[in-house]
């Protein structure tokens, strides 16, 4: 069952403005296997969303462009498809996407029913009748826990959590093989977050989709994902199965920093330990390790030479000099 669904190889993405070039994604490689959930963690600006948008070719037209690498869905290279093929075969059908803010991701002047209907209408390869499609709309709405008779209502008549359910219903309407969820719960309050996540898990079981989940919440990753990657300044600094990332042992200093910034109920501390400093300016990334300026273990070597990826165990990889040279053990705290 572990078939590779999505494979990204050495992806580079730049945003070109008149004044400067922002290097948003720098050599990202990842794989999503069918039926599994991959989490991408990282702080704002790490390139998570950009990576996702590029999978559906939704980068802003004139400014954002892929400057290197490949994105393959099954055996098809996404960037060699025509716009028409992309639209009719991939977007919304094989891969669909849930956006961060449910408040703004639904069209305010269309009924929620017609917004779900649209997703079905443009992928209606079996020439189903309008009634059949409408029945499917009802079905999808019930699936996400919204009574079907509410389909004639408009987004402003729904609460935030309900809107996100509608967004998920749109994404799941065609039973996609891959669901990309870009911080699906960030804009929701905590109780609703839990509901939405539980629902996504249930639906994954029913529909069998793989999920690519973007978040900055490590708790969500632990709850939802099979595998996880940590992104920093457009690079994957650490990747592995959920056990690799969450069990103490060898970790990238940035991952350790992320864990340090979560409150721990067992130890009585007044303040959390944030990671000092800021991410490097993506318009002028340093030659050495991008994390060197904030890294407590940084040495001269780190500032000069960019580290290479080291494989620790079968699935666990880290991008850090400390593991490539001496394999010094660094504990998780």
């Amino acid at each position, binding site marked *: 069952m572990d078939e590779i669904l999505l494979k990204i190889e050495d992806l580079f993405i730049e945003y070109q403005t008149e004044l400067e070039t922002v290097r948003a994604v720098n050599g990202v490689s990842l794989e999503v296997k069918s039926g599994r959930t991959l989490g991408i963690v990282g702080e704002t600006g790490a390139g998570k969303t950009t990576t996702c948008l590029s999978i559906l070719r939704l980068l802003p037209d004139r400014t954002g462009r892929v400057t290197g690498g490949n994105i393959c869905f099954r055996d098809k290279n996404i960037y060699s498809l025509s716009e028409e093929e992309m*639209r*009719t075969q991939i977007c919304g*059908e094989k891969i669909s996407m849930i956006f961060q803010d449910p408040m703004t991701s*639904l069209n*305010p*002047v269309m009924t929620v029913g017609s917004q779900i209907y649209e997703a079905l209408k443009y992928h209606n390869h079996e020439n189903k009748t309008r009634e059949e499609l409408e029945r499917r709309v009802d079905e999808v709405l019930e699936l996400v826990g919204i009574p079907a008779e509410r389909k004639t209502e408009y987004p402003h008549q729904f609460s935030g959590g309900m809107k996100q359910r509608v*967004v998920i219903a749109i994404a799941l309407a065609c039973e996609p093989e891959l669901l990309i969820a870009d911080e699906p719960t960030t804009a929701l309050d905590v109780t609703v977050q839990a509901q939405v996540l539980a629902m996504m898990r249930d639906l994954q079981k029913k529909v069998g989709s793989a999920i690519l989940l973007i978040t900055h919440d490590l708790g969500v990753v632990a709850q939802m994902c099979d595998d996880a990657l940590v992104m920093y300044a457009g690079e994957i600094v650490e990747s592995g199965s959920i056990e690799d990332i969450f069990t103490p042992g060898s970790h990238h200093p940035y991952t350790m920093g992320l864990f340090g910034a979560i409150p721990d109920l067992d130890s009585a501390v007044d303040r959390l330990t944030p990671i000092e400093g800021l991410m490097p300016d993506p318009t002028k990334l340093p030659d050495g390790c991008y994390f060197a300026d904030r890294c407590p273990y940084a040495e001269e070597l780190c500032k000069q030479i960019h580290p290479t990826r080291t494989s620790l165990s079968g699935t666990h990889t880290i991008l850090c000099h400390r593991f490539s040279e001496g394999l010094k053990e660094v504990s998780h705290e």
Partner: protein
Amino acid sequence: MTKYIIKRLIEIIPVVLGIAFIIFAILDMIPGDPARLILGQTATAEAVEQLRDEMGLNDPFITRFASYVKDVIFHFDFGNSYKSGQPVFAVILKRFPVSFKLALCGMIGSCVFGIPLGILSAVKQNTRIDNIISILAMTIVAMPSFWVAMMLVLVFCLYLGWLPSTGHTTLKEFILPTITISLANGCSVLRITRSSMLDVIRMDYLKTAQAKGVPKRVIIWKHAFGNALLPVITTVGSIFGSLLGGALICETVFTMPGIGSLIISSIKSKDIPVVMGALIFLSACYSLVMLAVDLLYAVVDPRIKAKYSSK
């Protein structure tokens, strides 16, 4: 919703009354004696004085205004034209169809010209197409209407002989006036469409639509333009409202007997009842157009509809 419409209709009454008062006051201050105007220069002073008495011109201002309003409301009588002696309302009604048709054609023409170009210009923001459209729009705005009208007459009537230069009955005769109006007003439709589209075009729901595989054409016209419509409706509505009474240049160049030229000629000949009646009629029309605009809002945007219904 019905309640809202009735409420708005009632609100029009004080607005029109206020306008009537202001116009009445201004016209009252204009020098010149209507009685003398009607009777002519040769009439005796006694005859003029007698007529003034009959017309109630010697009464105080407020009394005169009150009796005017009373006649309008209870008898629907706007008085008679000083010049022709005909009832004012009949004079206006004779002119109104031409103005209405011209305004309607002008409004449709402005939309046909302004909306697609505005959308194109927004979608292609900061490209050569956008620049060309902006320059085109600025050039057209800078051209005076009367000059455009005369050039159109010159080319299409004199050189090519395709279209008539005057008249107001057949559709063909409306083509040149419509083009003149559409060019001038279409540019404001174009600008408002462009800026309103630019506000919408980066919204997340367009990305959602793209991600679910909606064709680009549908995204632009249905999703983006559907949300960018409100300011466009306002602009188009006020263009229509002002065209009803103000397509003066077109009416003059193409000799079309509309309300605009009626008002101007009445002002020139101090035909006060006609000016009064026409302006009140226009203000009522304008208020109704604006009400229609507000109701269209509700059709376009369900959030506004909800607000109206709750009131």
